[in-house]
């Protein structure tokens, strides 16, 4: 503000918003790598496409809004949005879908509301939800190359063939006009369990195959473990607090234990599947903790987590949609301002957060003097 008389404090902590965002990206990187390991180059390609579009769209929006472009791009927030969005969408969807989702996230969910800090909803999830509503089929199909499922074919998921395959999927008809795609579309284990078929994970488990091997057709649990570790890193680094993740995870665990019965596990899932079989960990540690759209006081954060956790379980088990995280988080975002308003911490020296304004004291004394 006034440059000539800077206000106290003169000394400031070293961390900056851009650093926080960088830490979030760093914490999500192992999970992104493991995703690539299991699902192939599609994950990386998605990331690249999303980041390019996000930066381009953010810059043009800032240009239109006549804001300093370099200054705002430097806070890295658009990078986090693009990354979380790209990690949420399945690999193998065409590029224009990613562009559409990123555009929705950056332009409609963020810039329209006034840019960083002003958006009421999590941009990445808003973009994802838009795609989910528009293209439900594509958005729930996690494409896994045939080669992954059948190690005997000699191709690797990280080989050249599968790279070309992924490119073909991303840019249909653009690069390789006629490429025979031997692929298999599989859903997340939880979705599979919902569709009442035994999941690849469960079969891999029951057949005693190594869960680490790519050929097992699993991967979600390792991705979830990576997100869990990344989230713990963020908590240790004090970038996020434990309140939201812990309350989400314990709520999901609590509901899934409450409704669990071995006969019905194909329908309601097992607690294990609920925590590690889908996007629960990225949701709890990376998406619901987005500070802009979450409440800020700790009691409000706990309630927010409980609401999101219940919503995740409810949508998964009784809802018609297959993916619950985005719906739950957006639902929580709706309630965040209310939670912030109602669950305020007690102000020092006050019995409860009273709504009495101190101005009323002044009024009373004036009236006394007048009546005397």
């Amino acid at each position: 503000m006034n440059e000539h008389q800077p206000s106290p404090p003169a000394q400031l902590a070293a961390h900056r918003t851009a650093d926080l965002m960088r830490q979030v990206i760093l914490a999500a990187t192992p999970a992104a790598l493991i995703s690539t390991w299991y699902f192939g180059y599609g994950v990386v390609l998605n990331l690249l496409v999303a980041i390019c579009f996000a930066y381009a769209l953010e810059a043009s929006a800032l240009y239109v809004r006549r804001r300093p472009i370099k200054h705002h791009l430097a806070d890295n927030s658009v990078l986090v949005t693009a990354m979380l969005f790209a990690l949420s969408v399945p690999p193998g969807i065409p590029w224009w879908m990613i562009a559409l989702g990123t555009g929705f996230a950056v332009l409609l969910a963020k810039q329209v509301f006034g840019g960083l800090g002003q958006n009421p909803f999590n941009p990445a999830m808003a973009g994802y939800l838009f795609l989910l509503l528009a293209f439900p089929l594509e958005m729930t199909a996690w494409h896994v190359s045939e080669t992954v499922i059948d190690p005997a074919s000699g191709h690797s998921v990280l080989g050249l063939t599968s790279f070309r395959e992924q490119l073909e999927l991303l840019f249909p008809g653009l690069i390789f006009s006629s490429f025979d795609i031997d692929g298999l579309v599989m859903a997340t284990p939880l979705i599979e369990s919902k569709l009442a078929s035994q999941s690849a994970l469960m079969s891999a488990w029951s057949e005693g195959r190594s869960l680490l091997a790519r050929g097992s057709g699993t991967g979600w649990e390792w991705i979830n473990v990576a997100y869990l570790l990344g989230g713990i890193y963020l908590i240790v680094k004090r970038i996020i607090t434990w309140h939201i993740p812990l309350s989400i995870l314990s709520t999901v665990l609590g509901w899934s234990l409450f409704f669990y019965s071995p006969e019905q596990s194909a329908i309601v899932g097992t607690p294990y599947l609920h925590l590690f079989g889908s996007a629960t960990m990225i949701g709890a540690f990376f998406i619901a903790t987005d500070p802009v759209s979450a409440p800020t006081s700790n009691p409000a954060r706990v309630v927010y987590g409980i609401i999101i956790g219940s919503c995740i379980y409810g949508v998964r088990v009784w809802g018609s949609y297959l993916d619950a995280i985005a719906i739950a988080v957006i639902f929580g975002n709706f309630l965040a301002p209310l939670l912030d308003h109602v669950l305020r911490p007690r102000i020092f020296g006050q019995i409860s957060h009273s709504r009495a304004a101190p101005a009323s004291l002044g009024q009373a004394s004036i009236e006394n003097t007048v009546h005397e």
Partner: protein
Amino acid sequence: MLSQAVRWLTERRLASFSGGIRPPRQTRRTLRSRVMATPIPQRLFLSLTTYSKQERLTPVVRLGEAVRKYQCLATHLQDSDLILHAPTSGMITAISRDTLEIQSDGLDQALTLRGSTTEKITQAAILESIGRAGIVGQGGAGYPTIKKIRLAASAGAKVLIVNAAECEPFVCCDEALIREFADQVVKGAEYLMQASAADAGIIAIESDKLEAIAAIQEPLKASSLTLRLLAAKYPAGDERILIKSLTGQEIPDSVHPAERGILVQNAGTAKAVFDAVKLGQPSISRIVTVAGAPLKTPKNFSALLGTPVSDLLSWCGFEHESHSEKSSAHFQHTDHSKIIVGGPLTGRRAEMFRESVQQTTTCVIATDKINFPASGPEHACIRCGFCADACPVGLLPQQLLLYSRNFDEHNLNSHGLHSCIECGACAYVCPSKIPLVQHYRQSKAILRDSAAERSESQLRQARYRHWQTRQGKAARRQVKQAAEPERETPFSRENAKSEIAEAVARVKEKKSGNRQ
């Protein structure tokens, strides 16, 4: 992680509060040297300002007059508690609205002091000594000590708290004071207890000041004061936060702690009280921390009031020349941002050549680029909530920022802006480098103004209503008189008598009615 766990476990036993921050302490280099008395500076600049912004001291000496050490220089015409003494002998060379300049003669000719020789000192004598010495609180606000004692004593003083919790980075004047003058601080605290007739006395030191804690053990054995250790975090030394940590009592911002019988005095004030009572010496010096990376030998000085800050810095090996060259080379006057008077979190950036030591000056810091980087452009608030976690009074700084920007008066009040102690913990942790304290100060000022305006306008409205009723009454009386024109009945004794009787009856009726 392990060290954090150990700290967490040990702090369960320390007096603490929720929130707060832990900036690096950075006092080790300064504490390497002992407290040093300064040479007598050539010129001294004494401030005539007081704890209240409007009031100024009135000089009782004339320009060009020769003064001696301890001589009274200025006082307040209505308020005899405010008084200023000469720190050394010399000549008055300038008097302005705010400052009084003394050219010292270097002889340090002093008036003879009358200290107390007896061991037993009465409460009245202590109060008189403190009042005469012109001691004000050395922690920051500069409120006259004698006023605070009276306030606490009239509320039935329950406890005296000696505040040795200087929680800001770099500042270590209280730590050095207790390390080297522990017995005097304890003795001064006992005088304060006696003066306020407090039931108990506590000396509060932060747990990381090991030398001070060790030094005070011995003098404490012979006294009725107890030592309490505080968690080493900022702002543990804030008056209300300190009371909350030690007693669990939260004193709202509308009440002065002394009104609840809790007398908080700075450790430096206790030492000044000792000097005043035992030696009869007025308050003419204090211990000042002079620190910062650009200094060759940062240290604590026992500095005379009025000592120019530039002298203090040069005694610590601060290079003025290279500085001024640089600033002239840059074609910009940048000196003002190089110095901080007060701690780095609550102090203000100041111009070096305009500042001198006052009773409230705890610390002078020469800044460097590593500890005090240019704050840079401010980013958007991402509502990370770091500020809410750091706030020691349980406010939601990010919400207050929003309401300050929109100037939402209702929400500013209901979110407790008036409870903000301006400690700056929120702005310290803010990753977007938003000058939160500045926003709050502006909003507070506007709120104060609008409250004053509102009360004034209400007063005017009320007066206008009264005027209207009076006018109405007068008009009705006139109409009544006009409607009943000169129904003059000839004066008769009977009529008059009956009227009087009627009036008496009316009054009686009224009275009996009132009684019921």
